[in-house]
């Protein structure tokens, strides 16, 4: 397959944008808050046998979102995180932060708070940062698309899947 000049130019412009977005520089969070939000995101999409929120750089996506287009979520993050910290202190009185909890404790805390607007906002942001376009700072190495088996090409040719390939074999045109 050949790449046209236009496609090449588009790709080059896009890569510059991606590289800018994927620098590891916080623009909204302080580093302590970033660590807490990252700990939550990493239980929503854990790095287990495949890359999760950490490898995808979801925290950078959320940082860019709150600095940019999703500024009206800042208050929810501030209030919601404070409430989640209160719940943490109640469940684990000797703990100092969400990030410092064990994995099982983190899961327990999130189960106790998963109905809150704050958790739902972090869940949505984590999904956006994991499966969205890399130019927003997340989905690094396109790990989100790899997880679900998306090739992410600009064009495809049939057969597309197992069943249409099978049907084409059974009744070739």
């Amino acid at each position, binding site marked *: 397959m050949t790449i046209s000049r236009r496609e090449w130019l588009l790709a080059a412009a896009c890569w510059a944008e991606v590289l800018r977005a994927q620098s590891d520089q916080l623009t909204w969070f302080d580093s302590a808050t970033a660590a807490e939000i990252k700990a939550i995101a990493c239980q929503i999409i854990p790095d*287990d046998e495949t890359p*999760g929120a950490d490898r995808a750089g979801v925290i950078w996506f959320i940082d860019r979102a709150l600095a940019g287009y999703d500024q009206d979520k800042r208050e929810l993050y501030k209030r919601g995180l404070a409430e989640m910290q209160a719940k943490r202190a109640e469940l684990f009185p000797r703990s100092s932060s969400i990030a410092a909890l064990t994995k099982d404790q983190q899961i327990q805390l999130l189960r106790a708070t*998963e109905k809150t607007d704050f958790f739902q906002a972090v869940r*949505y942001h984590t999904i956006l940062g*994991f499966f*969205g376009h890399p130019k927003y700072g997340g989905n690094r190495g396109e790990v989100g698309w790899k997880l679900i088996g998306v090739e992410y090409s600009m064009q495809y040719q049939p057969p597309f*899947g197992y069943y249409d390939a099978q049907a084409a074999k059974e009744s070739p045109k």
Partner: protein
Amino acid sequence: MSVTFRPSDTVDFVVVGVGAAGGVMAKELATAGFRVVALEHGPWRHEKDFTHDEIAVAERGQLVNDHSKQPNTFRKTPNEKAKLQPAIGYCQTVGGGSVHFTANYWRFHPEDFHERSTWGSAVPGADLRDWPITYDDLEPYYTKAEWDLGISGLAGSNPFDGPRSKPYPLPPMPVKSSGVLFDRAAKKLGLHPFPAPMAVLSQPYRGRAACVHCGFCEAFGCEMGAKSSSLMLMPAAVKTDRCEIRPSSYVRKIEVGKDGRVNGAIYFDQQKREIFQRAKAVVVCANGAETPRLLLLSKSNAFPHGLANSHGNVGKYLMFDNGGYAMGVFEHPLNDYKSVVVTRVLHDYYRADPKRGFWGGSGIDARFDWYPVAFAGRGMPTDIPQWGSEWKRTVGQYYTHTMGLLAHTSCLAVEQNSISLDDEVKDAWGLPAMRATFKNHPDDVRMLRFAAERQKEILTTAGAKKIWFDPGSLEEQTFSVHLMGTCRMGDDPATSVVNKWNRAHDVPNLFLVDGSSLVTSGRQQPTETIQALAYRTADYIQQAAKRGEI
């Protein structure tokens, strides 16, 4: 350089809203020799402006109306106080909904135009009526739309379709795995699946390249012009040198002269300056929700209750897009994220059947219209955890192995379901916000649930390992993107807003062409009917103008 007119130039037509219908009107009227200014609230985006960015386009609604600037209020019945809440969605860009739609391109069936007579009695609580036109009246214009825009499909493959004067100009799109599974299962059940008619080019057509199956149809604009939207008609419109497309122009009022005829439109330009464009006649194509709102905003001494509203019918009989959504996961990969959304459809449950015990009908298609964020965020079965390792693994397994069945079901016209002006809430231009009042007729919900059983049968027969529904899709709807019925077509001015030529009963030089004139909802997928009405109206206007009758 294309033609531009001054607001003080009295052009022949102002077209309000350059969407599925308005794009056709602008191009057809200009081609017929009229001078046209077409005003569109949204920008004029071209192929190079369209992307595959799910966050910007699908999640953040880059192409659609912005409720933070143009809020809606919603209530189920007129006794309630309407609450601030998005209720009406539409594409706000030159080309309108045809730019970002799924591209299902269905003709209405002949019986769609006389369902009241076929049913034989009234449906209590609804106002089911026959249209003043028949399928045969519209057939030449269905054909014209299919050939002018470039539609892919297989004539004669749907045994429930009406007669057609010409086949589709292009063969159907290649079948996807969802289509194969659906086709096999439906045939096993004795049903009649057929290749989906799609407004997407399966082969090069009139200088446009064929679809490359990128998979970003629904909610997105096509970056290579293979989707047959009315945006693709703009070059021909502009080439006439008689048509100016004026984007970022938000019309707030149609003006009426002392003679009771309309004489132009007042709109806000991008800098919120008010401009009055003079015209000999006006065609409103703003969609089934914005058209009645604009008429209601256009109060004058001659029309104190809103333009063309002497009998109080403007805004009434709003119909929504009911659609029950079933999903099934299969053993092998379908990779249905590739190519067009739909490749197989069936219309076996389309006709209303008294044996069911209620009125309604449905067309069902096999589809996959889930982009990654949407699928992970909202598309998974609700009986599994929604975050964590197990959920992550399931999302990873399901995305390429899942297909959906969407039952597009009828919506009965109910008088109190309506678009009106909110008493308190204003939009960012200071105009009264759109208020939607809507509660599904009980038969609408019965039909959704009847169709859900059929969807389950088909998915089970197809071998789905797990089946689930979008639970909200089987309940009363509170949001719609197919906007129909609010300025009904009819012979009697006491019960309808436009006549059978889409001409306002009250105002001879005012035409309303979009979903608003639809008398019944069909089985959703109204775009082809809306565009056929536009071709027909343009043809009529041309004939009437020759006789000096506009």
